[in-house]
């Protein structure tokens, strides 16, 4: 019985961690490009990537189904050529969690990059450094607190997703049953002990997260800036 109880915790941690990595990989470059450059269609791209914050999770899940479901072009292709089905597997949960958490990361990271005095980056360029060096030696070190805060928010959102995950990954115990879904399931089944346990674990996680965020935010206003 113990193992079944802990599985949603283990799954949630795994899914949220991977989803956050995915968000970072996509979100950081996007945030930088939104912060530092102007290009036609920029506002539209910004709007599209903000949508997941505004749309209901079940709607997001629906769109995801449309894109990767077995009857979609992508889903069909994957199934035929690679024998892979995404829906109702834990990778789908990762995808769902990533989609809902990406906007949070992008917004925070973009603000962080915009907060770096452009003169500093220009100075670095006149001092002979290439764009990548400028990014890693100037932009990133000065923006990391904002990015870290954004990452933590993204992770928290990924951890707590219910609607989108349920739509594309389903509620398969031992396979795709993340903690929020497990709690829902436990309440439905009347298993209040299980529900309480899971709820307390998530609440503790949330409190720790808040604590870390606070410390990060406080340091943002120090003399470094």
């Amino acid at each position: 019985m113990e193992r079944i109880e802990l599985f949603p915790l283990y799954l949630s941690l795994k899914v949220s961690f991977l989803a956050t990595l995915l968000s970072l990989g996509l979100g950081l470059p996007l945030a930088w490009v939104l912060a530092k450059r102007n290009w036609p269609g920029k506002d539209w791209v910004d709007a599209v990537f903000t949508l997941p914050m505004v749309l209901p999770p079940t709607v997001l899940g629906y769109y995801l189904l449309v894109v990767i479901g077995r009857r979609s072009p992508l889903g069909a292709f994957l199934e035929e050529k690679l024998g892979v089905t995404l829906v109702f597997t834990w990778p789908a949960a990762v995808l769902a969690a990533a989609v809902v958490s990406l906007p949070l990361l992008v917004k925070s990271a973009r603000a962080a990059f915009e907060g770096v005095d452009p003169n500093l980056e220009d100075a670095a360029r006149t001092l002979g450094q290439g764009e990548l060096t400028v990014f890693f030696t100037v932009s990133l070190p000065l923006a990391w607190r904002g990015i870290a805060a954004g990452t933590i928010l993204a992770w928290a959102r990924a951890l707590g997703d219910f609607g989108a995950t349920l739509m594309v990954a389903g509620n398969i115990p031992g396979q795709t049953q993340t903690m929020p879904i497990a709690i829902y399931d436990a309440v439905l089944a009347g298993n209040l002990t299980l529900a309480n346990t899971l709820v307390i674990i998530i609440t503790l996680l949330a409190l720790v997260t808040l604590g870390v965020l606070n410390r990060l935010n406080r340091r943002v206003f120090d003399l470094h800036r």
Partner: protein
Amino acid sequence: MLQVEVVKKLTAPDFAVQVFLEVGNEVVSILGPSGSVKSLTLRLIAGILRPDAGRIVLDGRVLYDSQQGIDLPSRQRRIGFVFQNYALFPHLTVEENISYGIRHWPGARRRARVQELIKLMRLAGLEREYPARLSGGQQQRVAVARALAPQPDLLLLDEPFSALDNRVRERLVQEFAQLSRELGITALLVTHNLEEAYTLSSRIAVMEGGQVRQFGSRADILRRPCCRAVARFTGARNIFDGEVLKKEGAYSLIRGERFSVVAPAITFAPGEKVAFAIRPEDVILMKEEEVPDKIREAARPPDLIRPALTPPLVPHAWTAGDTVDQPRSGQKAGVIPRPVKEAGQDNQPGPTPTAGEAVESPNIAGWPGGGWPAGDGATAWNQLATPGLENIFLATLLEERSGTGNNILFVSLSGPKKPADYDLELVVPRNIYRFFDLAPGKTFWLRLPPESIWVWREDG
């Protein structure tokens, strides 16, 4: 050697920036009021901003050429840049800031260079500090050190002293002047402060409204401005419109709105509209005994006195009108007072004088007794074009202000009137002011030396 010819169209404010500059192995200042996009010019040269078209060549290397499609990124231009807010990396120490541009140098050489700069810029003991803990002056010195570390071909400085308070600024300006001389730096400096530009550079480019209005030596900018914009900005505060009346040898005669002056020889022809200016500090106060009797007496009424030119020039006598008499043989140069036309007064000219004869001035109700004649643009011609005695006027002090070590006087050349309607602004050292024992309302003699009068024609 830097050659710049670039244009850039701006949207807000809406004008085009056009810069044509050449900088040799020297320090050149770009001087101009705020909003004349001086900083933008530096950024165009550094590669931080891209021009619309043009060419930038530094020491024979083409940095930018719109026709050939060349646009080197900043990192390849070998240009050092000192920003107005210094742009020091807040997360790096002073040492790390300075060595940022030479991080790829071998360790020993890099450390040696950093040490050299720390000594040069008087930063010893601050190596491990973070920029936030430094004073403004220290930050500025770190910024300069950092820019100099990679030994750039050109140093650009964007108002590097404007964020400092006066005492610190003066000291740093002096230091930088000395440093640039010692190191032989080629630099382009942007400032709105005339004194800074004058102290630091051999040549000054005055920019206004996105254009370089005048680019020349310090003396040229100060004493031979090309146009009102430059003249005003460099403190030539007595600027007048005028018309060339006469040219003769080494002199010319310019009639201004309120008074006329004898100026040095100019290339403009009689009848041309010109502008002329004299710097407030070039006006000379004269003691009463220095002023020739003839002028002193003739100036009592607000009179038209014709200037006479001494040998070797042909002696002419100008009439009260704007025409010039033909020389009459045997006529000697002299001063001939003539009554001024006044409303209702008899317009007969006075007796025709013979050479050398002193004529009694008619008793005109004029200064200092009564009021001044309400001449419609009647100019007080009070000139004797004798070297050293040209352009002597009797001035009334309207208002006086104290400057640092000097007094600023606002005077009228046509009798007492409202201070706001002054004719001339003078700057005299305090001791001179005291010597003359002046006060508002008092009169005194002054002289505008022709060599200090600069005449030019506005080009639209």
